[in-house]
């Protein structure tokens, strides 16, 4: 069953999806196997042998009626991550192209991407993979029609006013403008998923040499986090 708070990405719809998903998880509804928030919707998977659509709908409607979810507070325990990233060079080969589409000089594009914290609007597609936003409207640039055959783990890519960080090496239609040394999915770690919805990420531009040193020596590629209140 799917609950949709909007067919376009808005701050209110995203906030509602994240908060409502947290409430559904907390409610531990009998028969529900798992649920997930995406940008503006909540998906609920349930066992047909334990409940049915109409019974689940009643419970979900009760949760929906509890409050105005678009005004809900962001998830608890949010963190602000400071993440070193290299932009351009062979590690971010499409910086100039993406900057041109946003009508910015490459150095202004870097400054814009690092100007303010970007919020994790959803985790999805691949394990631990965050969609960060929202960038200023100049960044409403389309995905490429063709696919880049492969971007590495930790790649930083842009499209449609969002930044995505790749948790696994994958083909993509997003433009690859930078590289982080984040390991977003650590299956052998007690907390396998580095970022959570609602977290914020502030990129800090570093030189390629500095980046390589951080990648080789620093835990989490030099990223640090602090609690947000």
């Amino acid at each position, binding site marked *: 069953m*799917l609950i*949709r708070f*909007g*067919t*376009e*990405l808005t701050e209110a719809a995203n906030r509602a999806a994240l908060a409502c*998903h947290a409430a559904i*998880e907390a409610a531990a509804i009998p028969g529900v*196997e*798992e*649920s*997930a*928030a*995406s*940008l*503006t*919707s909540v*998906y609920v*998977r349930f066992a*047909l*042998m334990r409940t*049915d*659509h109409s019974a689940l709908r009643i419970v979900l409607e009760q949760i929906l009626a509890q409050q105005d979810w678009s005004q809900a507070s962001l998830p608890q325990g949010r963190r602000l991550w400071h993440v070193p990233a290299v932009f351009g060079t062979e590690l971010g080969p499409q910086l100039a192209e993406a900057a041109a589409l946003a009508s910015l000089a490459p150095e202004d594009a870097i400054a814009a991407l690092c100007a303010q914290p970007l919020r994790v609007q*959803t*985790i*999805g*597609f*691949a*394990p*631990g*993979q965050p969609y960060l936003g929202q960038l200023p409207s100049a960044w409403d640039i389309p995905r490429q*029609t063709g696919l880049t055959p492969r971007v590495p783990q930790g790649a930083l890519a842009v499209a449609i006013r969002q930044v995505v960080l790749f*948790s*696994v090496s994958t083909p993509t239609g997003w433009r690859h403008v930078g590289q982080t040394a984040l390991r977003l*999915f650590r*299956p*052998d770690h007690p907390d*396998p*998923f580095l970022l959570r*919805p609602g977290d914020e990420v502030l990129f800090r531009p570093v030189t390629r040499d500095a980046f390589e040193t951080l990648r080789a020596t620093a835990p989490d590629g030099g990223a640090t986090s602090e609690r947000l209140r």
Partner: protein
Amino acid sequence: MAEVIFHRAGPGITVQDLGRTGYLAQGLSRGGAADRLALHEGATLLGQDPHCAALEIAGSFLSLELTAPRRIALTGAPMQAVCDGAALVWHASHALPAGARLDLSPRTGGYSYLHFGGGIDLPPLLGARAAHLAAGLGQMIKAGTRLPLGHDPGHCSGQTFTPLARFDGGLLRMVATPQTRLFPKAICARFTQTQFRKDARANRMGQKLLWDGAGFGLDTGLQILSDTIVPGDIQITGDGAPFVLLSECQTTGGYPRIGTVLPCDLGRLVQAPPEAALHFTFVSLQEAVQIERTEAARRETLGKSLRPLLRDPHDMADLLAYQLISGVTCGDDLESERSWF
């Protein structure tokens, strides 16, 4: 510790179970066996929990050796199975002696399963033993791989059953998605009248379909905001081609979905041979619920359909070898063994 040692292994062989539940919100799809029914069938043949990990073989080949006596079961797409020179019946359980060498080679393609009494005892990772290669969990089996086997408390073998028909393509039932209404009625109608077949390039993430004629794309250039996608969803990609998501799919997607194949019909898709004809039809949500519940109930009573493996001695190349490696009903039931013929 009982082990399986692989001497030869083609590509596409992984350890699979029913997958990981509860990580969808973190971007990790459930994964697990491409043909989930085959896992239940193997567990029924061996009288064990369907969560036991088994080997999934995607149209590949292997040779393995057992370091200890062990019951096995063979389910899913039938393969040529030979143990120490003697052919083994598919869709059946067998008791193999220590040191037995088992060779499996492909016949029709599709997904085949080799189950071991006690299951494959790899340490669980995030609650399951299934390889999820798209997420970087687990790996393909290679020549030289050794897998530990769990304790096998069971003793029943030499059982067979008639599997649910799903190895020749056919009709796949689907329900409407939130995007189905975006497709013009004429496109939906043409979709259900079209004969499809599988594209040879497929993996555990999804199956592209081939057909003759025009595509099924929306020509409005509509941008759809990504939301959660699940196995069975039929995405219509930019070129108008249908792509059915499978066990190891991504968790979100922005292509419009024309329908969602019922979970109980996905086995028919993944097990269809390359040339088999596939058709789709819409069923209502109420019908779909009824179909799924009926199939779940049938799956629960699979055990009642087991019968002793009886074979014509004239078809058996080496009777003694058969007797050594395959019990008839329960392995420790001497009366049954004597009454074999």
